[in-house]
């Protein structure tokens, strides 16, 4: 069976080709993962990260189809001859959306499911389920219905349900992409515990490298062509064009080795902080675009907005004004009422109390809910969380023409936005075949076509790589320059730090903080971006701000 000399996972010259696609999803990938390593897989969206993870237990190609050449071995077992179900006891796989993989109703039954399939005797099952319940700290949830759990809890149950089988290797595909910062911390703490206390081997993919890079032993980079390179995180990061803000800061400051954790960054940044002390003795130069809303015209104003779903109060009286030319980030944990608020402000969702008024492009202040949907979207546009719901035509070109027609916009308007966001997207591509970022770009273009003065975005950064986030940020800034206003609900603090002028934090349906980005983000341990943590007590959020602060100093004292 398994020999101790075998590496935990070995890919030898693996090429994966799906039917009907001209270029391979994975090109001659070779990789060795030793026992007890935490391996992080990074790369732009659609580059083949999921394909790489799928080859580990044979889901690619046994389940997905396609052609795999080369050899994949897990603890010495070849996936050519072993199907995913045969490897269930060796490899545990946790998907992006934990709820989509649940087979049973309650936590305890879900934890036991794999064991039942493996035909373990009942006493062993009971013992293992208890151990995993304790290990993950979910013992008091054992009888809870899976549907009632929060996102972080669901993800931990999903991890637990593969752990009970006692696997040697655990594969996690973007385990935190749907979670708020706190839920993500819970899950990553669990992963770290598995590696350090149990000595499990973990292969993990993640877009927001900044969260995991400090824990990783190896970094595997999959580029847009499907080529795989791997090595120590610091070495691989040095070659990547886009990297977490901390690494960018390290590159700009010329630190070597590049810092991967906040601790490394603070230790390397002593001289930087001293230099900043000289620049700004006042210690909090709020640098960056922080316009005051009073001098600008208010485009949308909600007063005492309430949303109730049955017995549950999602939004409990929120006052919010959006001024022209500002980008506002809406933050808060999962279930704090962000989506409900956006829908209520747009007017298509339910609102049980309070008032919403838009003034943009109208003769007098109007409640958007009273407008017919077709003219409502010309005033307030909303891109919902599952953006793909808006698409129903069979090609990108048809979708763009449809958008022009239904908005009464000149031909090519939608295509114009799309070319700015995602240049070179072929007209005949089916919307389902787009990557996450490309699909968001298409939906965003469709919603921008009637030129609404107010744009609301619900979690647009989910699943976006650094390049797509940068493109989104540039577009939002352009909209703000065009005297429009943008409200973005997001969990991504790094994105909020660079893209937003103002941050509003919701908790339990109420506004708990509303102020300039630097003020709100720097004060919070959970929400502070990496750069702010490194240069604290200076209130600088981004590498760009640090760079400008230092340049100003050079200008003053040549």
């Amino acid at each position, binding site marked *: 069976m398994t020999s101790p000399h075998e590496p935990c996972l070995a890919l030898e010259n693996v090429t994966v080709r799906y039917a009907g696609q001209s270029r391979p999803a994975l090109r001659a990938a070779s990789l060795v993962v030793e026992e007890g390593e935490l391996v992080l897989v990074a790369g732009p969206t659609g580059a083949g990260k999921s394909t790489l993870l799928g080859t580990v237990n044979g*889901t690619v190609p046994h*389940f997905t189809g396609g052609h795999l050449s080369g050899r994949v071995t897990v603890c010495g077992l070849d996936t050519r001859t072993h*199907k995913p*179900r*045969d*490897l*269930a*006891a060796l490899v545990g*796989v946790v*998907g992006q*959306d934990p709820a*989509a*993989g649940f*087979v*049973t*109703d*309650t936590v305890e*039954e879900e934890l*036991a*499911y*794999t*064991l*039942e*399939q*493996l*035909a*373990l*005797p*009942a006493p062993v*099952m*009971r013992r293992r*389920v208890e151990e995993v319940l304790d290990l993950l*700290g*979910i013992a*008091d*949830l054992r*009888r*809870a*219905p899976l549907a*009632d*759990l*929060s996102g972080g809890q669901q993800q931990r149950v999903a991890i637990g*349900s593969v752990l009970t*089988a006692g696997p040697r290797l655990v594969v996690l595909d973007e385990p935190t992409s749907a979670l708020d910062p706190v839920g993500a911390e819970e899950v990553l703490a669990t992963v770290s515990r598995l590696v350090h206390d149990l000595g499990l081997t973990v292969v993990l993919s993640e877009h927001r490298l900044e969260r995991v890079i400090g824990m990783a032993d190896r970094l595997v980079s999959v580029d847009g062509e499907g080529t795989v390179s791997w090595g120590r995180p610091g070495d691989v990061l040095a070659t990547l064009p886009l990297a977490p803000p901390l690494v960018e800061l390290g590159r700009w400051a010329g630190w070597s080795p590049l810092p991967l954790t906040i601790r490394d960054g603070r230790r390397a940044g002593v001289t930087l902080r001293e230099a900043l002390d000289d620049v700004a003795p006042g210690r909090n130069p709020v640098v960056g675009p922080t316009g005051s809303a009073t001098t600008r015209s208010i485009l949308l104003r909600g007063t005492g907005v309430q949303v109730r779903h049955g017995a549950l109060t999602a939004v409990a009286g929120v006052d919010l004004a959006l001024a022209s030319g500002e980008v506002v980030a809406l933050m808060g944990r999962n279930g704090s009422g962000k989506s409900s608020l956006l829908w209520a402000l747009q007017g*298509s*969702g339910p609102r049980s109390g309070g008032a919403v008024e838009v003034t943009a492009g109208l003769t007098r202040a109007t409640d958007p809910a009273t407008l017919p*949907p077709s003219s409502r*979207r010309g005033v307030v*546009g909303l891109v*919902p969380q*599952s953006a793909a*719901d*808006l*698409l*129903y035509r069979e090609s990108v070109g048809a979708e763009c023409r449809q958008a022009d027609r*239904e*908005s009464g916009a000149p031909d090519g308007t939608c295509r114009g936005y799309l070319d700015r966001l995602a240049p070179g997207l072929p007209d005949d591509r089916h919307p*389902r075949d787009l990557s996450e970022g490309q699909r968001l770009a298409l939906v965003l273009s469709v*919603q921008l076509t*009637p030129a609404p003065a107010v744009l609301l975005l619900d979690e647009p950064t989910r699943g976006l790589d650094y390049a797509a986030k940068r493109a989104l940020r540039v577009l939002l800034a352009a909209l703000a320059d065009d005297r429009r206003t943008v409200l973005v609900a997001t969990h991504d603090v790094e994105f909020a730090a660079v893209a937003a002028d103002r941050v509003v934090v919701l908790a339990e349906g109420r506004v708990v903080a509303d102020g300039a980005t630097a003020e709100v983000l720097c004060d919070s341990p959970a929400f502070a971006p990496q750069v702010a943590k490194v240069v604290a007590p200076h209130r600088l959020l981004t590498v760009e701000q640090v760079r400008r602060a230092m340049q100003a100093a050079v200008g003053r004292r040549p």
Partner: protein
Amino acid sequence: MRLAGSVLPRDLHPVGWWAWAIGMAVAASRTTNPLLLLLTVSVTGMVVVAKRGSSPWARAFRLYLALGSAVVLMRVVLHVLVGQKAGTIRLLALPGVHLPGITLLGPLYLEGLLAAAAEGLRLATLIVCIGAANALANPKRLLRTLPSALHEIGTAVVISVSVAPQLAESVLRVRRARALRGEQGGGLRTVGRIALPVLQDTLDRSLLLASAMDSRGYGRRAAQRPATRRLTAFLTLTGLLGAALGLYAVLDQTSTGIAGWPLLAAGLVLCALGLHVGGRGVHRTVYRPDAWAGPEWAVAGSGVAAGTLMVVLAAHQPTSISLPLEPLGWPALPWPGVLALAVGAAPALLAPPPPVARRGAAA
């Protein structure tokens, strides 16, 4: 019977609840006496309220009550519209429309109306009994008691059942999204625009689930020799054929002399053998299998006893358990019938209390 241990909260074996509910349904099917029928509904309702858990299934009991009321109403309306009107006490002289073979409306008599209502009530009581079984025993747990050869089919059934609420949720979400593109109202054109994303969404989810189940070991089976597979197929097919022929012979009252019961029994035995042989290739175990102990015997027994008592009563005193129509009179309340239903109420005391679900209290 060891009833001492029954005080600990636990789920009763689902087969126990179904046996009880079927017994109650048999009892209800024998009578048109509205007093006995209403008593049956009260008894099942009481047991459900006393012993149901906190699952979504349990909360659905009121839907069955509503469905029952609708059935009674429907039966009366149908009687007024197209029923055979007969009786002596005329309530309303509606004009009748005579069509070939059927009369619409027509004079309305109290006897006919009451008979229709009693018929409707009997049907409603049967529905409530089945609803009680669904509320008390999670259908998913019932499927877990299937023999292992049917395990994979059972899982597929469970998943297809859980697709329905997901589908409804997807439709709602896509409709809301459509409003964002400025569409309003219904019409056939919007059906296609909603159906496409919903179907894609459902397909995506099913594939995700199938992939997750595959990588968690679903469908592992030991390699079977072709001879074993052929034996399984032979046993199951022959058994099914025998059972079908036997059942036909038993139910067909005109045929005589054919040994219906032995044929049926032999067919069922062959089926069981086939399932056993086929199930040997499936290696799986059940986590916390539902126990069959004293309380299960008591619950199932009380339902069977109630049904049997009522069947016996119907054979000996058919008049006492039906609504007297000619002449119209107040229904009797025969004590054996009441006793039967009182026995049926026993699970409210004998069944163990359901376990309490502690919800996601920790953040």
